[in-house]
């Protein structure tokens, strides 16, 4: 009787595959070697989705038009369509007006905060919701329809505060890394400390560690946190959030948890200062 069952398993091929995969995984995690490839695939996916939706609409329209073969029915349909068009046009105009108002309000907020009119506005295309709700990678993609030149690490404004910075551009999409991404580091300050806050990998949360005693931070929950401008990326004195928790790590070390001011899930438009305005 055989001591072990026969198998089809030549270990050499599996070992090769295993080491190749491990090498690719290590190079991607450590150095982001395949980030452009993934970005390209993601952008292509978005294009395919947009094109397929448009094709589906066209096919559905074509099929419905074949059914209009009698004059009476056709006339009836036309009248219905006309009413529908008027309603749709009215709806679109109302939505358009609402959107314009939203843009104007957002531009005013940006002008108040950044003191410049040279601002490019972008509409959100997608947010990686699965990762945003559970994991460390917090990214959003903005649609760059006008093909504006956007440099890497440009601060991105949303709602009434900064939400992150540009990471890369793929085709006509801009990838933005949010503050809550664990790879993001934001120099911040309050009235009594400076630190570099790292994303916690949880929605709207960042945190920094300080060599201070927890007693020094009594009654500090709810205090506003501002950008310090020390990283050279963000303008200083822009309010980004409030202290929401203070956790003791050891006797002389604490973690200050900050809840961000802007929720990226509730924003449609995001702004960036244009390249020319950013130059000194």
């Amino acid at each position, binding site marked *: 009787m055989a001591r072990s069952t026969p198998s089809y398993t030549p270990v050499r091929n599996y070992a090769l595959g295993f080491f*190749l995969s491990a090498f690719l*995984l290590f190079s991607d995690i450590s150095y982001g070697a395949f980030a452009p490839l993934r970005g390209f695939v993601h952008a292509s996916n978005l294009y395919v989705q947009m094109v397929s939706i448009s094709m589906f609409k066209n096919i559905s329209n074509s099929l419905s038009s074949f059914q209009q073969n009698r004059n009476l029915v056709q006339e009836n349909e036309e009248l219905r369509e006309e009413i529908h068009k008027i309603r749709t046009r009215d709806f679109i105009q109302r939505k358009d007006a609402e959107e314009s108002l939203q843009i104007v309000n957002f531009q005013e907020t940006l002008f108040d905060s950044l003191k410049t009119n040279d601002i490019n506005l972008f509409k959100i295309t997608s947010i990686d919701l699965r990762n945003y709700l559970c994991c460390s990678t917090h990214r959003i993609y903005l649609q760059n329809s006008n093909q504006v030149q956007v440099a890497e690490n440009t601060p991105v404004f949303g709602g009434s505060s900064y939400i992150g910075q540009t990471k890369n551009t793929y085709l006509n999409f801009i990838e933005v890394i949010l503050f809550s991404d664990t790879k993001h580091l934001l120099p911040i300050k309050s009235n009594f400390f400076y630190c570099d806050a790292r994303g916690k990998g949880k929605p709207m949360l960042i945190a920094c560690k300080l060599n201070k005693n927890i007693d020094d931070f009594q009654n500090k929950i709810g205090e506003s946190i501002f950008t310090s401008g020390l990283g050279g990326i963000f303008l200083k004195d822009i309010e980004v959030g409030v202290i929401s928790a203070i956790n003791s790590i050891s006797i002389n070390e604490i973690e200050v948890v900050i809840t961000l001011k802007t929720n990226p899930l509730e924003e449609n438009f995001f702004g960036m200062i244009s390249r020319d305005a950013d130059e000194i």
Partner: protein
Amino acid sequence: MKFSNHLIILSTIMLGYWLDDSLNTVSIKLFLELNFGFLIFAYWVFALPEKIQSSAALIYGLAIDLFFSNVIGFNMLFFTATSYIIHLYVFRFRIFSYFQLSVFFSGSSTFYIACKYLLLSPNNYSYIVLFVSFLITLVLWVGIYFVMRAFRRSVFSNL
């Protein structure tokens, strides 16, 4: 095996990952991370070990990494390793009961989830998620096994 058959198998695995992506946004609030994609892949290797070898596992992993993952290599690594282990013990698995198979495949799936969190999102690593996922996958595996077996018999009647 024909190229078209590989495409059908890859499509079912992708469907699994798409289901995971769609459902996990809801299920994660209940401390449950579904892993249909990995289980479907494991089923195919278990059902057709002589057809799905190391190269197929590697290429399926690469495709899944490109479309559904945040890093290249993670699924390649796990698909290759899982494929090797299943190939090694495939005849012993044939005499296992459904419960024993469930425990093995659910355990593999939980190990996959644990490594995914440890490597890609250590801040969100949670034993309760692993425990709940293990228990639920224990039940889900039986369903996946029978659905995929029916699918395989209807589509690949010659294999």
